[in-house]
């Protein structure tokens, strides 16, 4: 009895408060987004807003349930929970309901559950457990491999569904690893791979290769601080590439333009290697490795996309990348989303007065594009408040994470921060046209039981861990 009072006293009510505010704001905006004069009551259970209320009540019940579970449970069962979630992901691939071309859902009665949402929690726990293990040498090859395996195994399984949006979320865990001393090099590699992954699908390979080579030369110049050597290195690439280009223009040879670049690199590569060997400059090996690796990665992403994925899966990916799906031309969705937000002006059109969101000009207006309703009806004031709330929550969570006495709790805390931040950044970035259309929900706001529950559990495990942080003696 004494202990439970203790928990409530030490609970970070500020976080709980922001959580409740966001959830309620989300609910109100869902109401506005799909408002229908025939179903005026916000409690009408046949409508999304009515259903969302049920999800919210269930989420609060879940949060209370989490408070009743002992904190040791999470660290003790972290791996088991993780293993179970992996099994669920495999299960959903085999037994799941196919909705909109993706096997992401378990249908239980009238309830649709999306295991990928809960996998984020499991992965946070497993990562926290692993990174907090005694005497871990985080920069060792073995540890690096394990960390990447924990993060990307579920991502891979989710990508197969295919649900690229949810899959990409796992990249956010790199932030956690980074906080715990993960090698910057691998972090940079990760960023490069993520960027390349998108670019490979969005842009022509030729452009990517040219940019990669340009960047490599730039890095070499910065490291060597020798314009002359950089120039020679550039000439070694440009001259063979230029010759090949000339030959192809004169129609003496038939060659795909990006093979010109590949061949030029192949010609130049031995010279670079000999130079590096003689001068004993190891950085050059690294740069060359990066260039070749990047090219290979780009090529393989492209190859997998074109030859391994089926046509409808290609469509899915294209839709997720915003390359398809629109009846009125490229970028229709983002354009409509920007129109909706932009038309809100400074103070917004007022509650229920939005036309762009309500009348389906904006797609997915109650789920992924819920931020449009905020922008249209509440204007810049509303969007600033929502962004302010999220920033405040994230910074607050960093503070909470940092004050934990146990490594497990701290690392888990960063897991929460990373997931929430990734969702926040990608979702809002997408609606205002700064990032490609990647369909992931805005935490606490977007309509949907699975995502709301998952975010609630994710957050309240941290709040629960935080409430009893004092129990652990340092």
């Amino acid at each position, binding site marked *: 009895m004494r202990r439970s009072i203790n928990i409530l006293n030490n609970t970070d009510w500020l976080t709980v408060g922001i959580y409740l505010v966001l959830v309620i704001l989300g609910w109100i905006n869902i109401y506005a987004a799909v408002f229908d004069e025939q179903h005026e009551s916000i409690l009408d259970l046949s409508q999304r807003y009515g259903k969302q209320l049920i999800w919210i009540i269930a989420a609060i019940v879940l949060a209370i349930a989490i408070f009743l579970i002992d904190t040791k449970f999470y660290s003790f069962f972290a791996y088991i929970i993780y293993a179970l979630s992996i099994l669920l992901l495999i299960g959903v691939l085999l037994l799941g309901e196919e909705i909109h071309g993706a096997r992401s859902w378990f249908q239980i009665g009238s309830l649709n559950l999306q295991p990928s949402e809960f996998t984020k929690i499991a992965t946070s726990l497993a990562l926290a457990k692993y990174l907090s293990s005694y005497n871990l040498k985080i920069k060792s090859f073995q540890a690096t491999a394990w960390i990447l395996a924990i993060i990307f195994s579920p991502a891979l399984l989710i990508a197969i569904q295919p649900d690229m949006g949810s899959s990409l979320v796992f990249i956010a865990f790199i932030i956690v690893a*980074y906080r715990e001393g993960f090698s910057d090099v691998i972090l940079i590699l990760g960023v490069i791979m993520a960027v390349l992954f998108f670019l490979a699908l969005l842009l022509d390979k030729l452009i990517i290769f040219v940019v990669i080579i340009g960047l490599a030369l730039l890095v070499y110049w910065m490291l060597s601080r020798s314009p002359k050597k950089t120039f020679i290195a550039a000439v070694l690439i440009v001259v063979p590439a230029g010759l090949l280009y000339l030959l192809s223009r004169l129609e003496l040879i038939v060659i795909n333009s990006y093979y010109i670049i590949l061949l030029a690199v192949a010609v130049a590569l031995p010279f670079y290697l000999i130079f590096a060997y003689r001068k004993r400059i190891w950085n050059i090996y690294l740069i060359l490795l990066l260039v070749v690796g990047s090219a290979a990665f780009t090529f393989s992403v492209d190859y997998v996309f074109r030859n391994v994925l089926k046509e409808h899966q290609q469509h899915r990916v294209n839709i997720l990348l915003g390359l398809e799906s629109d009846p009125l031309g490229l970028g229709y969705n983002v354009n409509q989303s920007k129109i909706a937000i932009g*038309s809100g*002006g400074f103070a917004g059109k007022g509650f229920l007065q939005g*036309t*762009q969101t309500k*009348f389906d*000009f904006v797609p997915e207006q109650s789920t992924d594009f819920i931020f449009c309703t905020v922008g249209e009806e509440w204007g*810049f004031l509303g969007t600033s408040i929502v962004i302010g709330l999220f920033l405040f929550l994230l910074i607050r969570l960093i503070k909470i994470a940092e004050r934990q006495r146990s490594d497990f709790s701290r690392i888990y805390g960063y897991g929460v921060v990373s997931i929430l931040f990734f969702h926040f950044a990608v979702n*809002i970035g997408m609606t205002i046209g700064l990032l490609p259309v990647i369909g992931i929900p805005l935490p606490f706001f977007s309509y949907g039981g699975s995502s709301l529950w998952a975010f609630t559990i994710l957050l309240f495990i941290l709040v629960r861990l935080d409430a009893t942080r004092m129990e652990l003696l340092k």
Partner: protein
Amino acid sequence: MNPYASRKYVIGGIIILAGIIFLVRLFLIQVVESSYKSTAESNARRIEIQYPARGLIYDRKGEILVYNEAAYDLMVTPGQLQAFDTVDFCRILEIPRSEVIRKIEAARDYSTFKPSIFLRQISSITYAVLQEKLYKFPGFFVQPRTLRKYPGDIAAHALGFVGEVSEEDIEENPYYQMGDYIGVTGIELAYEEELRGNKGRKIYLVDVHNRIKGSYQGGRSDRKAEVGRNVVSTIDAGLQEYGEKLMTKFSGSIVAIEPATGEVLSLVTSPAYEPSLLVGRVRSENFRQLSADTLKPWFNRALMAFYAPGSTFKTVNGVIALQEGVITTASEYYCDLGFHMGGYSVACHMHPSPLDFRGAVQHSCNAYFNYVYRAILIDPKFESTAEAYMNWREHVLSFGFGHYLQSDFENELTGFVPDDQYYNNIYGEGHWNFLTVRSLSIGQGELGITPLQMANLAATLANRGFYYTPHVVKEIEGQDQIDARFLERHYTSVDSIHFAAVADGMEGAVNRSGGTSWRARIADITVCGKTGTAENPHGEDHSIFIAFAPKDKPRIAISVYVENGGFGNIWAAPIAGLMAEKYLTDTISRPYMEEYVLRGVRLDQQ
């Protein structure tokens, strides 16, 4: 304690940075950029125009000349189409399946979500059948339209017609939009603003599929359509129809005016067309055919043809001479079968000689009016012929010649009365005299007068010296009176006492033995008339007649032109007589004369 603790600042920094980037971006698109607002509005609004019914046009006795009939345009919104029973659909509309497909494709090319016309002006019978089954054809709906209907199918040129607005119309007046109807000629044009009413509009909020979701601002910006105002025309439908019948065999025109008001009782132009030819789906084909017709049925002779007035003009020259005091009604001139002076001769027909003024009008003596005109131009009051000529011209203009009458016919023309400069340019200043312009004495030569102006002359003679501007509309619904310019008397520069002798002469011309225009004579009513015969370069002379009746308190003034009809008494005089009798008594006392005109064959050519 933790070697990497400082990395929390990097993470926190990234989060804050992302937030700031978002806020800046949001500020730019929400507060700075304003174009999103208008895009959003045009996205979600649909303005539906409510078309008011066009005003009706009545004749002076309350008979309907033009009314509206409902027509239905079948509209299609390609985005809302679902699979439907094309066999049934084609059977109802009586069109082949291939046309259905072609039209849907065309509509889709225009817009998937906006409605476009699938089939224009389907009949009310087809509509009745279709309406029952419309629910089976989602994506189709019917938009009511109105079409002009003409029960008597008469007075095409007076009523005018409506057509779709041109791009210039839209540019000139923003009220009009593509596809609107507008009066193109006649009353439809002159009273367009009264007849059209005012379009209303309803603004709806629509979703991305153009489905109506509610009214915009709760209907506060909606406007109700104002029905067009009805108009009572001055046309007498019975007289108009009779006049058109009489002119069947001829090219030319009849204009009848009520002298006491200036109201146009009938405006007949021949050849004409039936106004109903320009309505509905047959319109474009008929329009093409009428335009290709060599007899020019489009050409509104009554308002636009310039004819020489011929001998009818002797009345004008006569009263001017009396006014100037260069002759009196007792002045007599000899006629030696014509006028002979300075090597020139103007022939005249057999009649007693010498004649006084009344006799000269009655017998239409050419010699007499050459002397009269000579007296006007050599009037010692003036220093030169040119000066005397310009004085004469001023008198002529005061009769409504040579300038717009300012009637409510938008396409009336001015006619032509040459000024001294005209002759100076031809002959040189001071190098022309009476003999040069002597044709004017008997209404030949350079004069150009429209039939409307001639009818106005008849009205002026009937009124003994003044006229009201001729007009074709006498009442506008919701308006106390018509335009003030139609209520104002225009006095000529000739005093009214001088008109009595002309009226006597015109009475004699019709009613006395030896008068030139006995064919205009009618029972029990004194018709005053004057024939004219206009020489013209296109074959036989035009047959002209002006008249008013009865002599005292005249109720009708008429001008009749029959192109290439010969002497005035041959066709124009009997037509004028029949018209006057028809209007005044509503009976025809001389059926043989009516029969003669309707056969249209000259006695000497039978």
